């Protein structure tokens, strides 16, 4: 398979189309503009649907409609745009509609800036929509991983009838990298039992897409059904990668761009300071790989969380690992990419027990 040199945004768009995405609904926002731009020509050229909606809210509701009809559907946006989509994402989760949301995060809060950050961890993992719902969140650290994750998101969304998000930051979206794109569309899951396709006459029963349950007992039953599904996803799909299985002195825990930088930092800690630290890259943020992470750091006295946000991941690591391991934090948010110096210095400074200020 030949390698291409391609921008993250373009590669994600092409991977989605090649993976069999049938309809894309989006609205422009930096730094994901090339994604929607690429979709605007590759989708029509391959007899698929492309709509530049009038707003993010419109786009996610078009996703709801097309997914409800059994289509393989995607939308993409960035931070503030994803914030606008939250109500629609909750509706998709409530009605159990498979769809893919690509979130290319920039820096916040508010309008923030257009440079990369990972401050949308809470937004992605916990969501801003109402109700007890969950979104599968995959976190690629390179263009190739982003391409692979788009395919994986399509499959997980369809397998579990649930929205799946690919969360990356502006750095991965804007960079070009050598990448191999998929060659075959992904296999389809049968949707005839639930998709509203208008063939009532031949089927004899009506498929209804809905998230409204006015009867509290029915809504409670629906929530219990959703929770059972989420437990199943958590059991099957949580994933992390241990980049240094033979390093046991300590760990750096990160995802996305920060993980990529952390791999280099772990290498430097070994070469320059003789400390064998492993880089643990979280590949899914929801489900969070709690068990595997607990296992990976259980005999360590110290582990450092590195993130381009103000302690959002740190707090989850603290809550989920519940071990004697001291958890440190290094991070920045605002558009600057975390450096290997930041991580190496943070590690050396805190491994001795020095406490630093982090988010509250």
């Amino acid at each position, binding site marked *: 398979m030949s390698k291409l040199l391609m921008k993250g945004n373009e590669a994600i768009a092409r991977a989605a189309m090649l993976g069999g995405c049938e309809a894309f609904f989006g609205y422009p926002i930096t730094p994901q503009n090339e994604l929607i731009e690429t979709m605007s020509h590759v989708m029509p050229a391959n007899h698929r649907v492309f709509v530049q909606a009038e707003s993010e809210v419109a786009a996610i509701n078009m996703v709801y409609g097309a997914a409800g009809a059994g289509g393989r559907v995607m939308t993409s946006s960035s931070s503030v745009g994803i914030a606008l989509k939250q109500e629609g994402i909750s509706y998709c989760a409530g009605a159990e509609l498979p769809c893919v949301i690509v979130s290319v995060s920039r820096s916040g809060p508010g309008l923030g800036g257009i*440079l990369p950050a990972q401050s949308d961890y809470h937004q992605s993992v916990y969501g801003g929509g109402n109700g007890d719902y969950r979104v599968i969140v995959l976190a690629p650290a390179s263009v190739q991983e982003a391409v692979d994750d788009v395919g994986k998101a399509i499959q997980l969304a369809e397998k579990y009838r649930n929205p799946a998000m690919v969360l990356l930051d502006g750095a991965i979206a804007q960079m070009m990298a050598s990448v191999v794109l998929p060659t075959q569309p992904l296999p389809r899951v049968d949707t005839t039992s639930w998709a509203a396709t208008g063939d009532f006459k031949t089927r004899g029963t009506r498929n209804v897409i809905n998230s409204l349950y006015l009867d509290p007992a029915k809504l409670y039953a629906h929530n219990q059904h959703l929770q059972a599904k989420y437990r199943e996803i958590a059991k099957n799909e949580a994933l992390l990668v241990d980049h240094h299985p033979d390093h046991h002195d300590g760990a750096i825990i990160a995802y996305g761009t920060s993980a*990529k930088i952390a791999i280099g930092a772990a290498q430097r800690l070994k070469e320059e300071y003789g400390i064998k630290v492993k880089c643990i890259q979280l590949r899914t943020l929801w489900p969070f790989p709690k068990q595997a992470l607990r296992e990976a750091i259980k005999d360590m006295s110290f582990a450092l969380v590195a993130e381009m946000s103000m302690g959002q991941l740190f707090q989850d690591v603290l809550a989920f690992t519940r071990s004697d391991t001291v958890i440190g934090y290094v991070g920045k948010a605002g558009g600057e990419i975390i450096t290997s110096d930041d991580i190496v210095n943070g590690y050396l400074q805190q491994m001795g027990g020095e406490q630093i200020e982090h988010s509250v």
Partner: protein
Amino acid sequence: MKPTIKLICAGFGGQGVLSVGQLVGLCGIELGYDVSWMPSYGPEMRGGTANCHVVLSESSQSPFIGQDMTHALLMNDAAFNKFKPLIKKPENVIIHTGLIHQDYPGCDFSVLAHEHHLDKSMNMIAFGMVVKSLGWEQSLGLKVMKKKFKGLSDEMIFNNEKAFLLGFTYESV
């Protein structure tokens, strides 16, 4: 194991530094490297140091941005001041001597391009010098240019190749 190459190309927007970086990336793919090309975008582009970091590595795990850069093509003063300190070996820095008055390898790309009626292909002179300084074959540069510029006019392709060869054979003092 091939050595990892980390190149910064920086200058004004319009000087063509991002394209030079992409061509170096394409050379990397031909040579079997894992490649990343990371551009500046947003406010930095408007401040005079449009730049890209190109990393060619045998491992796909190499960070795509870092402080241990090995090579640089610097096309204006702001870029020189910002990125020169990141490069350990001065001989690995190529500068635009028309805009940077420092004692480093390079040439006055504007003047050289103008003398040869290649004003629009100025960055290809720089690409030629970069390929030469990385110890790569002339044919490699020409090969990736052919791929990258498919669809351009014959005249533009001819001029780009001419400029590339001018840079590749240029003796920097």
